[in-house]
């Protein structure tokens, strides 16, 4: 699997490269600034890109903007955005185009290499990988969520992170059919149309919770 890495701190860039190569990824470019990233994404069209939010030259949200711009010109280009902090605002922006192949994770998640690599593969396949922290923020306090039972909220959280039914069942010690039943109930309560396709289902959930209370946006 071909991957582009954008990270300005040398140690992290080298560490990520080493980690991904250990899992048989091919690192086709490891860049350290926003403009270089945009060029690399368009030149290499990687299977997945791993992008730090804050990059030179401005050290603001260069990486995020480059990722959004690249996905604008190449819809569905799989990008996993890494950051020292996760924000609902940025998650909403990444999800705004409604396409799959998006990840948004805290840098800490890299420590758990298996889960991190799993998230990359999921995004490369057109799925999503949302950080549990940002999912928790998106879900908490939204009025429709009050209708869900605690168990359903757990299932919803894991689903919003981008996990499959099997993974959710494993994590919560539930059978596949129990997971399906919970999901059907969640979709019913939120008024969403059910879908068999995992990725499309996750996007519907994310669009729903990210769309909530977004009237505050200009």
């Amino acid at each position, binding site marked *: 699997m071909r991957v582009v890495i954008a990270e300005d701190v040398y140690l992290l860039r080298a560490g990520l490269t080493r980690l991904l190569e250990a899992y048989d990824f091919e690192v086709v470019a490891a860049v350290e600034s926003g403009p270089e990233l945009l060029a690399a994404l368009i030149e290499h069209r990687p299977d997945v890109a791993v992008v730090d939010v804050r990059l030179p030259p401005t*050290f603001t949200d260069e990486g995020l903007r480059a990722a959004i711009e690249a996905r604008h010109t190449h819809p569905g280009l799989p990008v996993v955005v890494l950051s020292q902090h996760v924000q609902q605002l940025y998650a909403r922006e990444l999800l705004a185009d409604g396409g799959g192949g998006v990840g948004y994770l805290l840098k800490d998640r890299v420590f758990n290499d298996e889960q991190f690599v799993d998230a990359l593969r999921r995004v490369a396949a057109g799925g999503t990988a949302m950080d549990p922290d940002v999912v928790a923020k998106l879900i908490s306090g939204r009025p429709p969520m009050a209708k869900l039972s605690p168990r359903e909220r757990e299932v919803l959280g894991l689903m919003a992170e981008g996990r499959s039914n099997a993974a959710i069942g494993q994590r919560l010690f539930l059978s596949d059919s129990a997971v399906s039943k919970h999901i059907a109930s969640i979709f019913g309560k939120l008024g969403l149309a059910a879908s068999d396709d995992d990725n499309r289902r996750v996007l519907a959930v994310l669009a729903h919770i990210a769309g909530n209370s977004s009237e505050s946006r200009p």
Partner: protein
Amino acid sequence: MTRSLRLGAAVAAGLGLLTTLIWGVSGQGYFWPRWVWMGVAIPVGLAGAVAWARQQRVGRRRRLAIHGAISVVISLLEVVIWLLSGLGWFWPIFPIAALAALFGVHAWVLGRLPPERERELLQRVDVLSRSRSGALDIQAAELRRIERDLHDGAQARMVSLAMSLGLAARLVKSDPDAAASLLDEARASTVSALDELRDVVHGIHPPVLAERGLADAIRVVALDSPLDVEVAADLPGRLDPPVESAAYFAVRELLTNAAKHSGAEKVQVDVGHAGQLLRIVVHDDGHGGADPAGGTGLLGVRRRLGTFDGVLEVRSPTGGPTTLTMEIPCVLSSRRTSTCSEPD
């Protein structure tokens, strides 16, 4: 000398010359035009004297100078009348003495009062020294808090991390299972340390503020608030980082207050910049009764803003609603604030 004054003087001189000419043509005799000359000299002299006095800086000194100049012109006039009316006993001594006495009283009163400018400056120095000590207090308290957070948080985690790693290294041959679980513990400890460092960093300078500027940073606070907060922001540029930071923490404090005390459901935040003034209005539909002197929250906001000559106006009648208006004088730089929908 202003143009209108010069024009007035020219007209007066023309009038004087004309009457003198008429007097010369009409057989001379008693030189009556001297009264015309005197008549036209009065307004010109007064205007000239006042124009001179007006060169002083605005304030009491200028008023004194105008007073003096008019007194001098009137005194001269009386002397001239005395000269033209055939000398005799020097009667102008009385009005001149009266004018001088009046002027003396004016000057004496002025001398007794502290000069206006000085009083303004004293007030300003007072405000500045108070806001400076307030700013230093806030800063010192913040540094203490950061020190404590680092000491009790990340630093302590690092110590336990090093201990776990040392123990794991010792056990790796004799008891690999125990070593593996210690390593797992060490990893968890690192994650917690990062969490705590993130909180500390957020308290020093919120990352979104650095990355996106005030408007989006306030949007993030709004999204994370338990209340339904609407944000309408119109900032065509970036603010100075210290002002941006003060405004951000002030808004965050006000929103925290609203969530804790107001009983509000909806909050509206308007952010705008006009005429070198940043203006932020936080309006909630709660039960009001916010006391600007009571809680430490509003006082703290006021002190924070005071450092930048900013003000906080509180309108919160019992029963609500509450409207809090902040104004900070500042300029916008041309750096454009990125907005969510635009990638560039």
